[in-house]
């Protein structure tokens, strides 16, 4: 489970996040929507322990990330916009390496099964990652999360730049992860993919969570209207 309690972050005089509170239970995907600078990536960095909160707390399965960073990270997998792999290693070797860092031993056959479950083509498994497309890298990223048996998945613009087929495949993978009791927090600009994969959608504006929308209760165009209305408010108030 992912939980933010009055989570705040300041960089000098700038307020990046202001009293953010939300909960993402297991088997749910929560998507953060917002313009650049709204605080989406800052939220991910706080849950990863890359940043320390100025106030409040970020919890992973009840563990405060700031107080117990290692325990929290052990339960977390992270997929950035561009999954970074060692180009000289094959996809399988990359997976084996990142999986080994979790401390648990995963057999080669389980790793191969993970890659297969993530949708990586068999012929690509033993090719060097330097030859991989972005979609293939994201699949390895999912396989890493599977191998780690992460209970929480943090995604930062994971579908940016993916072609429609690859994005569709990726959404399917996320649904599969939910089915494995994983709680997912994803930040994205893509309203339509967010609605497709997310259970709830949070709209962030200037570091504040201004609305939470139930994805199943709105159409794509309604979501766009809600989102743009908040962005328009932001422009109006700024003016």
């Amino acid at each position, binding site marked *: 489970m992912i939980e933010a309690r009055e989570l705040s972050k300041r960089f000098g005089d700038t307020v990046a996040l202001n009293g953010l509170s939300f909960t993402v239970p297991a088997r749910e995907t929560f998507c953060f929507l917002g313009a650049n600078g709204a605080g989406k990536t800052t939220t991910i960095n706080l849950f990863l322990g890359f940043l320390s909160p100025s106030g409040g707390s970020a919890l992973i399965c009840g563990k405060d990330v700031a107080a117990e960073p290692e325990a*929290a990270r052990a339960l977390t997998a992270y997929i950035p916009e561009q999954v970074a792999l060692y180009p000289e290693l094959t996809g399988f070797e990359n997976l084996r390496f990142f999986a080994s860092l979790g401390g648990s031993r995963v057999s080669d056959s389980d790793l191969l099964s993970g890659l297969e479950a993530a949708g990586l083509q068999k012929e690509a498994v033993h090719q060097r990652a330097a030859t991989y497309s972005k979609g293939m890298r994201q699949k390895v990223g999912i396989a890493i999360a599977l191998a780690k048996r992460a209970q929480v998945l943090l995604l930062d613009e994971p579908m940016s730049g993916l072609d429609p087929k690859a994005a569709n495949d990726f959404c399917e993978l996320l649904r599969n992860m939910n089915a494995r009791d994983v709680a997912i927090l994803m930040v994205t600009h893509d309203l339509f993919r967010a609605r497709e994969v997310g259970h709830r959608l949070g709209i962030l504006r200037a570091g504040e969570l201004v609305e939470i929308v139930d994805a199943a209760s709105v159409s794509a165009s309604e979501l766009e209207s809600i989102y743009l209305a908040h962005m328009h408010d932001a422009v109006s108030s700024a003016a």
Partner: protein
Amino acid sequence: MIARQIAAKDLTLVFRNHRVMAVFVAVVLVMLGAVLIGAERTASFDRERNSALAADREVWLGQGARNPHSAAHFSRYAFKPLPALASFDPGTVDYAGLAVWMEAHRRNPATFRYAESAGASSTFENLSPAWVLQALVPLLIVLALFPSYAGEREDGTLRQLLGTGVTSDAVFAGKLLAALRLLLLILLPLVACSMLAVAFSDIDAHQPDPQLRTLGLAVAYSVYLLAFCLVALGVSALSPNRRSAAIGLFAFWFVFVVLVPRLAGELALARSPQPDATEIANSLGEIGMAFWDSDELRDTARQQALEKYGVQSVEELPIDYAAYELQFSEEYADPLYAEVYRELDAVHAAQERTLSALSMVSPTLAVARLSAGLAGTDRAHHLAFTQEAELHRQKIIKQMNDDMMLNAGDAGYGYQSDPEFWGEIADFHGSLPPWSRFASQYLWDLLALLVWLAAAFLFARNAVARAGDMERAR
């Protein structure tokens, strides 16, 4: 556990880098070549030394009936014993001279400097395992480790790595472990080949403490190369990309391995200029003739002889007075020679002090000095040889003067020693002194290496922590 995984991954990346592997193979081959060349060169010196010693003895013993003072001018050579470790680090061997001509009335400097007589081939013969370790292996370390952090940052894998929950300390430990394993891979062929070379060496001169010296060399080079690894990791951690890490580290290598030692040598010479060789030769010549050109000194000698034997005139002396004068002149000149060499040595010692002080600036300078000292090929060991040779010269010249003094009767310079007498004049068999005699001279260099290691560790640790913070804050 995590450090081992990171180390294994880093080594795989190094092994898959064809450029690094090509340089690695080249360095290992150069190193093996250096071991073989060094071993053959030292063995060749030893063979030549033994052959020259045998020839010198044969001529000496075969000179027949002859006046001992005439023989003292003909005299003999003291050949410098070379330690087996000279094949590892030749130090000053090529420049300091390999033999001293021990003659009457003159304390000669060491001669037969290999550097003066070597031809074009000396370029390759100067290749020694010590030089490879001092200059080439650090270059290989730079080449292998510059992408260590910078490459991960450039590829985004550092953030990915830290995102898995691995701490900066674990990443640092893994990368350091990879560097140590790489070092081991580089050094193992050298150590194995050196051990074989020493095992099959038939060098006569034996150091009293080869194990201690070898251990010292192992420690000194381990500290030196480890410091380089840490600097490489630190610079790589602070560099935004591979290119800037490579430029920074190659600049570091050039400045501290090539430039500073060269400038230090120039500075040492500028601060303590080498005395003019002609002036020294003239001084030695004047000392040799001082007694014979001074009526006062000759009167003193005569007076001393008369008092010693309780007689009124030289004619009444029970000894050959010409031989007495010869020995008196030697004993008069010996401290004066010692003074000339002391002054010369003081200049060299001042040069060495400058170099030693600058070893805080360059670890290469520190390890080079320490290496030559431990190998027994530095100036201090050479000085010990020349001093031992001088004591031997004084002993055999006195032996010959005494023979003439006691046995010449009235014959004076017409006296001829029995051919059997030449066998009583001992060959010079120099001893190789123990390290304990010189260790105190190298404490500063050892301290410099340890300071470099500590500073490199702190630098790398802070750089890595900073790099981790920067990466997380991106």
